[in-house]
């Protein structure tokens, strides 16, 4: 019977591959964060319109990028998990969710910190902030459903259904929020599209973006490994109970 169970929790190959990637990803993250922060805080010039506040962009925009990409990645993992019943796919969606939620949270907070000097208020119902907020709720729902099922294989399926429904809905939500925002746009509010992106800003932005990406990879590897081992732990405890 032990063999039966371990067939479902034997992502040894995944662990082998990630063990090779992990130190590189971690090193790359530190390196890029160092360079990126140096560029962001010292090299990059002030924006002629927004002054120094443009520097918030270097932590805001990458977080926003990641929040969207992580959700897409979760949706793909969920689909793979549902269709091919690949055990690592479900776990990787689960492992990615808290990271995505953190990025979304950061995008929200830094966005509103950027909003105060730009718009004179911490929160505006700007299309981007609003859809980020909704995305954050979707992440919370996803994590809540994992918590609500006792049986991990059921939880995986339920969460997969939810994240796929969400993924189909995200473009609709995005569209509706954008549209709603243009409909209600107050004239006095400056848009964030203001600054033309100059290479002196684009370079640190891309570096920070890549840094966030490799940070994601690093944390993701840690979390998936924890999930895989956690599953193995569960199995072994159950096997022990059987004897």
């Amino acid at each position: 019977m032990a063999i039966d169970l371990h067939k479902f929790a034997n992502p040894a190959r995944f662990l082998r591959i990630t063990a090779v990637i992990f130190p590189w990803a971690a090193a790359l993250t530190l390196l890029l964060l160092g360079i990126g922060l140096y560029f962001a805080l010292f090299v990059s010039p002030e924006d002629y319109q927004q002054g120094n506040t443009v520097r918030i962009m270097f932590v805001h925009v990458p977080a926003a990028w990641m929040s969207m990409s992580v959700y897409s990645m979760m949706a793909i993992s969920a689909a793979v998990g549902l269709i091919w019943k690949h055990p690592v796919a479900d776990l990787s969606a689960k492992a990615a969710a808290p990271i995505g939620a953190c990025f979304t949270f950061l995008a929200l907070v830094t966005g509103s910190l950027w909003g105060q000097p730009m718009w004179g208020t911490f929160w505006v119902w700007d299309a981007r902030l609003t859809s980020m907020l909704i995305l954050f709720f979707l992440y919370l729902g996803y994590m809540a459903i994992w918590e609500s099922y006792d049986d991990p294989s059921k939880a995986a399926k339920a969460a997969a259904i939810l994240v796929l429904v969400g993924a189909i809905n995200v473009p609709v939500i995005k569209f509706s929020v954008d549209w709603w925002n243009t409909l209600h746009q107050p004239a006095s509010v400056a848009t964030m599209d203001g600054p033309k992106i100059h290479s002196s800003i684009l370079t640190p932005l891309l570096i920070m973006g890549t840094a966030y990406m490799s940070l994601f990879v690093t944390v993701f590897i840690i979390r998936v490994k924890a999930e895989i081992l956690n599953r193995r732990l569960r199995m072994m405890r159950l096997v022990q109970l059987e004897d």
Partner: protein
Amino acid sequence: MTTLTEFLGMGGYGAFIWPSYGISAVVLILLVAFSLRRLHRIEADLIPLEQNRKTRRQNKSTKEGAAS
């Protein structure tokens, strides 16, 4: 000294820029820390169980060896 103050002031926007960087750093460091702690905890829990299984397997194989 003035340059440092100027740098921290960020042209009057320091109060918004530094919290942005600060909270990003705090959240991401916490994320890494919690993820690592969880992994280490699970690894620690696994060690006795793995050993248990190994010894049991050895017992079994020695028994079988004796039987044959």
